[in-house]
């Protein structure tokens, strides 16, 4: 479906497209340059083709699958690739696939700075944003139009604001978790204006006067909602996701405390938004800030338990797990730690663990 969509965008609108590896990148610049972003979270399933063996099995499935996918020619429909500076594994993939074979189209590494706002980091971030815009200019043959960037920032603000409203009231949506997350994740490859239309339609379905959804409300923190069967299993067990901090979804919804100046220098505005984004171990230095944020999400959402859902072999996430466990144990909140490998189906054992967890949380609530 994605392939056909990307092809149609090129044929009907002459729009170029870029495959984007996880997690954080300034999509606004791509939109402003009329470039379609198609995110590559793996994709799920076993890595396909002979290239799958070029990475050791102790590298996360997101990167192994991406290598096999790209080198197998499955991403050839796009015009270029963008590698954000997420972790050692994405960093390694960016050189492996471009220098040793697998990706011969143009590529760019967006080296976002790590750590808190510092004068050096902000200056560097703005220079990187400009470098990305210049690269896209070469790719498209058109220079960046600053006014178009301002419009794109406004468009993505509208997307984030709508998403935030939908997510905050998701228990009043007449949708299953799978339906909701499939709709939200269409933003990983749809043209942003179409995605906003769909989100608004989704928001229109919010039945604010209806009673909240029945079932056990849970919060999830983790990386990416794969396998999606996880959501079905929760549904079947009588639970639903009332708040999420998946890096792919909730953690990328920016609700700035101080609004950026959208009429001024758009690169400055993007830098402000970058530092206003929720805490993510792939960018920040402050582990305690992440746990504080998770606790406040938990409290405000009415969740009754937490699922920590991580991909195996993911260092940025794995280093935070003990602190998260400790923080929720101190709060007396039930917590389930789940490690998955980007498989397409959920194992029977995982399903059983989920059912048992939901049952336990449900029983606590009743008591």
């Amino acid at each position, binding site marked *: 479906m994605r392939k056909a969509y990307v092809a149609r965008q090129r044929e009907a609108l002459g729009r170029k497209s870029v495959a984007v590896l996880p997690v954080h990148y300034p999509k606004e610049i791509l939109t402003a340059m009329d470039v379609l972003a198609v995110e590559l979270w793996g994709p799920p399933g076993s890595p396909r083709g002979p290239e799958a*063996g*070029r*990475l*050791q099995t*102790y*590298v996360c499935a997101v990167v192994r699958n991406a290598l096999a996918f790209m080198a197998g020619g499955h991403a050839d429909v796009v015009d270029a690739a963008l590698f954000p*500076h997420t*972790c*050692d*594994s994405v*960093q*390694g*993939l*960016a*050189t*492996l696939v*471009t*220098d*040793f*074979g697998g990706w011969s189209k143009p590529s760019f*590494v967006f*080296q976002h*700075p*790590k*750590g808190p706002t*510092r*004068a*050096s*980091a902000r*200056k*560097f971030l703005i*220079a*990187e944003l400009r*470098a990305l815009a210049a690269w896209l200019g070469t790719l498209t043959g058109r220079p960046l139009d600053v006014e178009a960037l301002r419009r794109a920032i406004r468009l993505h603000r509208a997307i984030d604001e709508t998403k935030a409203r939908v997510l905050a009231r998701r228990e009043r949506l007449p949708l299953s978790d799978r339906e909701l997350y499939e709709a939200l994740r269409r933003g990983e490859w749809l043209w942003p204006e179409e995605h906003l239309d769909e989100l608004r339609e989704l928001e229109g379905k919010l039945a604010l006067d209806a009673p909240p959804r029945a079932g056990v409300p849970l919060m999830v923190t983790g990386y990416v909602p794969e396998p999606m069967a996880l959501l079905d299993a929760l549904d079947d067990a009588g639970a639903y996701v009332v708040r999420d901090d998946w890096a792919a979804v909730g953690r990328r919804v920016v609700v700035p405390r101080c609004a950026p100046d959208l009429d001024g220098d758009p690169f400055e505005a993007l830098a402000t938004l970058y530092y206003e984004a929720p805490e993510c*171990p792939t960018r*920040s*230095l*402050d*582990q*305690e800030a992440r746990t504080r944020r998770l606790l406040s999400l938990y409290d405000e959402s009415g969740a009754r338990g937490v699922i920590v859902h991580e991909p*195996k*072999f993911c*260092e*940025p996430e*794995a*280093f*935070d*797990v*003990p*602190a998260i*466990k*400790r923080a929720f144990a101190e709060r007396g909140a039930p917590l389930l*730690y789940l*490690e998955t490998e980007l498989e397409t189906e959920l194992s029977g054992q995982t399903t059983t663990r989920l059912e048992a967890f939901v049952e336990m949380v449900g029983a606590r609530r009743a008591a």
Partner: protein
Amino acid sequence: MIGVVGKLGRRRLEYEVVKRLVGPLLTEVESARARVKSFRKRGHQPKGPFGPPLESARKLKELMTRHYLEGRYADGAVPVAWVTSGFPVEVLRPLGFHAVYPENHAALCAVQRVVPHLSEAIEQQGYSRDLCSYPRADLGSVVLQETPVGRLPRPDLLCCCTNICQTTLYWYRALAAHFHVPLVLVDPPFVYGEAKPHHREYVRDQLEELLDVAGKVAGRRATMDEIVEVTRLAREGTLLWGECLAESRNRPAPWTGIDGFFHIAPIVALRGKPECNAYYRQLRDELRHRVDKGIGGIRDERHRLLWDNLPIWFDVRGTATLLAERGFNFVCTSYTNAWAEAGSRIDPADPLGSAVIAYTDIILNQDLGKRYATLARLAEEYTCDGAVLHSDRSCKPYSIGQLDLKQRLAKDLGIKVMVLEADHGDPRAYAVEQGHGRLTAFMESFA
């Protein structure tokens, strides 16, 4: 207040006594004991496949023992920084910081095979066994307050440079949350092709910020003269280390690559200090002497190998013996070489400008094309006829791409190359017999 001052004064006094009296005294006693031992052993031919042991090994032990001994008394006496191995430590030295290298300490834990014990303590808290064994050992040591070196001083400042990996960032995040002390970051962008001007500028700006932060913690800013002097020492030490390594271009190599893994400790942990340079001068002279006399690191050197990645610390001896018995020696390693290359770019004439390049363009912060070029150059310069690429479960930045590197090295250089999957620190992740079986089969292929 008086109590605090008194306590600080006492700590400082203890520290100075250990540094100036106890440390040197222990060193003297150790030296005397070693001299007696070597006198008794005179005339004895060493048994086994190795050449005579290096005299400098004793000095190395003394040097590192003193370093860790001083560390026990450092907190409360002088500012203490915990520092990643690739951090521009030159900025801290003039301010009197005692620098602790958790990686070096974790390697020591690995050699002593205590990583599983330390790691289990934090695995119980939810740390995954899949994480690099260095942070697991270090965090375990912090939680249990156990270390083979007696005691590590509490940090006042955490100094992380991500030029070796991003893992250090997550590790130091956890340390900062534990100790509640500032974490200062130097984040050199990864170099794909050539570093862009704004990448260099970013590192330069961070070094300036670092000068401020370190100055605040230490109570004064380092002067440029002081930085120039420490940079001079660091450069000299690195060049001396490079000269030691280069002696292995001779046949037979006067020491083993495995020796190199141990003798690297001062250039990592004491870089920029006069005692580091004095040590490498002695080592270099001893190696030159061995070359003149035709003394090899192993008795019968028939094949010369390149080693890529960290060593398997807990089986360094076992691996070396297995190889030496069959006439194989690791004459060069990309790991030990990295310390010779990076620091030699430091230039006292432009301490900060040169530090930008030295701390950005290091092997683990550069693309695979450059990694390949380094490996190929080392294999040629040291006339290797084979290479072992240690695929280290703990260290992804070093290991990603090795399967492709293997193919290319074998094809372009016509040498035999194997990938050995193991772990640098955790014996639970490496079946030694199986590994030795694979190495034996590899060596048999040279027949």
